[in-house]
């Protein structure tokens, strides 16, 4: 009897001493973080997830980590769907974003709410282990995660880019807070950038000519932009690229996300799709002669590298995209 009991005990000890299961540790961290985020304990959720190391191939980990930084940035998806989306209007495609409930959070170019949401977006842009300096697309991510998980990531990117575009345009656009129109605020500038009228555009001739077409809202003359985005012929490339990256990523995921939805939850966004896609086609044409496809640059590092010798293409991009879509 004693020998049987000893054998029995040895088997128990052997079984108990099995090694730790890494997947369970990660799943546990994700569960803990989501519970913390239920109580808006953003930093604790970040710490919990960062403690197990970045899991670049784990879709739920990445979305939860992004949501933890988004939490710190004041982002809330329920508010976005129920209160913010109805502000989007066809007549001012991007202007509606400036009226989102979180758009007035940004009070400086380096404000934490804007920076944290960019961190969240960066986590998702590079989901799958991509280098932050390369322009990753929705298609690249879906090749790794598949359509279901890739679609989930794209949808989250779309929602967050809209929120940060709202902040970016509201901060730099001198808006009328009643209706979100550009140049209607207390400051004196009517444009985003301080343009040089002589900057060449492939189809419009020059930036000056483009501003004279009457399709750029209150922004109709050169050198009438926000100085925090740089002075005429001396654009702050880093800040200007933040806008480029946000809008390009938004345009990258937009078709795939809208095509995947069968309901009307995103009807407001669908209503501005044509204007956005037309502007994207136009900017590609305007820069074709220069051999720069700014509309596909989805990385901050890539955008800054592309603008290291000249910033003329940033002017062309802004006048064709932002000034036309944000009136």
């Amino acid at each position: 009897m004693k020998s049987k009991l000893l054998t029995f005990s040895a088997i128990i000890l052997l079984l108990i001493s099995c090694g730790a299961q890494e997947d369970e540790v990660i799943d546990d961290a994700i569960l803990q973080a989501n519970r913390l985020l239920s109580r808006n304990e953003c930093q604790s959720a970040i710490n919990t997830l960062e403690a197990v190391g970045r899991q670049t191939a784990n879709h739920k980990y990445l979305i939860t980590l992004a949501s933890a930084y988004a939490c710190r940035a004041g982002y809330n998806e329920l508010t976005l769907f129920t209160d913010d989306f109805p502000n989007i209007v066809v007549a001012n495609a991007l202007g509606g974003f400036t009226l989102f409930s979180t758009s007035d959070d940004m009070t400086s170019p380096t404000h934490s709410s804007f920076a944290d949401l960019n961190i969240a977006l960066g986590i998702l842009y590079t989901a799958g282990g991509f280098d932050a300096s390369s322009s990753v697309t929705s298609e690249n991510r879906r090749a790794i995660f598949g359509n279901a998980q890739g679609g989930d990531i794209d949808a989250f990117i779309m929602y967050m880019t809209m929120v940060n575009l709202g902040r970016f345009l509201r901060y730099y656009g001198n808006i009328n807070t009643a209706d979100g129109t550009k140049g209607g605020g207390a400051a004196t500038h009517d444009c985003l950038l301080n343009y040089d009228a002589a900057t060449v555009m492939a189809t419009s001739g020059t930036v000056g000519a483009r501003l004279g077409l009457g399709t750029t809202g209150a922004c109709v003359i050169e050198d009438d932009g926000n100085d925090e985005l740089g002075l005429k012929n001396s654009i702050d490339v880093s800040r200007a690229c933040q806008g480029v990256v946000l809008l390009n990523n938004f345009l990258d995921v937009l078709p795939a996300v809208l095509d995947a939805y069968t309901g009307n939850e995103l009807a407001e966004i669908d209503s501005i799709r044509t204007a956005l896609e037309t502007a994207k086609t136009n900017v590609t044409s305007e820069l074709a002669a220069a051999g720069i496809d700014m509309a596909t640059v989805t990385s901050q590092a890539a955008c800054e590298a592309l603008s290291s010798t000249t910033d003329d293409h940033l002017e062309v991009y802004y006048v064709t995209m932002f000034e036309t879509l944000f009136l």
Partner: protein
Amino acid sequence: MMKSIGLIFILIFCASLEAGEFRYLMRSPRGLLMGDAFTAAADDNYTLFYNPAALGQNDELQIYPLNGNFGLTNILDDMDRFENFPTGATAIASRVMDYPLYTNLGTTPGLKIGGFGISLFANSTASVALRNQTHPFLDIDYRYDRGFIMGYAHSFGSGGKRVKGRLTAGQRLSIGASFKHITREGMDESFSFFGPELLNAVNGAEGYSEIRRRLGYSIGKGYGFDAGAEYGLAFSNVHVTTGFSVLDIGDTRFKRTEGFKKLPRQKMAMNWGAAFRQDFLLFDYSLTMDVHPINVEHIDNMSKLHFGAEVGLPLLRFYGGINGGYLSYGGKIRLWPVSITAGFYGVEVGSRYKDQKSSRAIFMIELFDIDVDMF
């Protein structure tokens, strides 16, 4: 849009389950009310779901032809959350955020003849939790299992066996094994609340079944094995037992026959338990203790500790316990041919000790149970 959000909330309340909890194939309502400290005390119709070796203490013919149990979230324990319930989607979401909802419905008719036992079972368990205010996730774990389990225990010695209503003095070591076949229907998924997968599942769906199918509800079949050992010592009116079991050795996996998503495995669980019982003819009591699931590392060790107690009087039995830090209590009334068990218990649905309690109520009815001495 609001309609879709509303439908999703209906889905939450119509289904049921939660993440983070270790899910056994079936649990005895009596065991749950004893703090789930039941591995060395499982002498009811759920024996095979705890330790096949526990069949070794049976020397009777026991038949459990009709029974059913029903469990659900005990909202009485959190009434503040449901008072002045809001109507807006955002407000509803905030109110139910991180609140685990649970339902269970099951039956397990079976019989035991000496060291042999067989049970049929059908058990539906569902948990739903909405988590993360920033980017809400809807965690859905739904399982509907049906099948049979059969096992046998071989005993060395006869200590603790009950013959003609009296305990046999002496020692006993029983070794047991069981085999089961399970058809599992269900899903264990986490959905972004505003992601395309969940919203598309709700849009245009004709009823709950279609939503479920679109979300990846699948069906599969699997075979599983359990093994265990139990040592018993009896003298005078005292019976002491200790047992160890490994359920679903190497995980019970399911081969999918319908659907497009992987079915949740029945994960392996190692369990140890001990029980001390004393019987005074008109009055008896038991004290029990369990440690389980021993092998699951991400569950806090304190949450693996279970303590239970049972007091028996003619026609009535009372149960109490501590289930991983949470109180459980209830009772049973037996007026043959009907027995009714009811009570409340708490269970850990987070992964740390006293992290998140799910408060539940359970009710069970048994009809025409028969115990007959074989010798």
